[in-house]
């Protein structure tokens, strides 16, 4: 009587046990295959552009740089160099100039044929930022907008503090 009962229990339990084993097997195999899949995926994502490490240029910025390149022979083929200097009311300030030389440790960002150059030291202060060309009545100039490395700063946006 007891034996038959235990058999019945066994019969009921075995499908559960089997399913559990199958589940575990599935988990093991999928995790290993996803691990294999992940490594090629991660390498492709590192090839993709990570927004927080580049310095972006707006369309107006590239348009103005193209315009400058066409306007005068002296400015043709020059790159916009962004550097960070100490000064201003909040510690650091941006400086723009047109340059045709790059150093070995410079970072170059290219868009539509125009180049933005940032030296290695300044790069840490501007990575993830956007460079724009703002045209107002009182002035037209290159400005750095949305710098995630900067906090607060001058409201004229040429001086900033770092986090």
């Amino acid at each position, binding site marked *: 009587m007891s034996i038959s009962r235990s058999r019945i229990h066994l019969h009921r339990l075995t499908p559960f046990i089997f399913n559990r084993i199958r589940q575990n097997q599935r988990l093991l195999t999928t995790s290993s295959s996803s691990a294999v899949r992940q490594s090629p995926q991660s390498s492709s994502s590192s090839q993709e552009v990570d927004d927080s490490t580049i310095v972006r240029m707006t369309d107006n910025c590239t348009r103005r740089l193209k315009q*400058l390149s066409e306007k005068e022979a002296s400015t043709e083929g020059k790159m916009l160099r962004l550097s960070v200097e100490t000064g201003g009311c909040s510690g650091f300030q941006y400086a723009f100039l047109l340059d045709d030389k790059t150093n070995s440790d410079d970072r170059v960002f290219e868009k539509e044929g125009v180049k933005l150059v940032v030296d290695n030291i300044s790069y840490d202060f501007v990575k993830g930022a956007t460079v724009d060309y703002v045209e107002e*009545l009182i*002035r037209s100039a290159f400005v750095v907008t949305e710098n995630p490395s900067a906090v607060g700063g001058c409201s*004229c946006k040429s*001086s900033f503090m770092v986090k």
Partner: protein
Amino acid sequence: MASSFFAAAQKAGPAIRRQALSLTDAAAARIHHLLQQRQRQFLKLGVKARGCNGLSYTLNYADEKGKFDELVEDKGVKILIDPKALMHVIGTKMDFVDDTLRSEFVFINPNSKGQCGCGESFMTTTSAGAAKASGS
């Protein structure tokens, strides 16, 4: 005697007012170009409280002179000065700098006691006093 004095005072009046703001040739040429292009009557100069060091200049187009606006005419160009700004900009020389990388109006203000590193913000004794009053 009194009438000649009065006539002299009348002549001196507009001359004194003209000195509120002066323009360089470059600034005048630029303003003339802008007003022609947009077909507007005047350029209006004002100040507003912002920036790191007190005040900063504002420039807008204007088509009519407000009741208390100060009209400055220099080198064939008409500029209105906002009455609130008049005390701060009196004696200022307005220049226009045109570079490859930037082109902007520059204000050389003898009243300016200090300037933001970027040059946009400035402080005058009157504004500094006002800032202290509001701060305390």
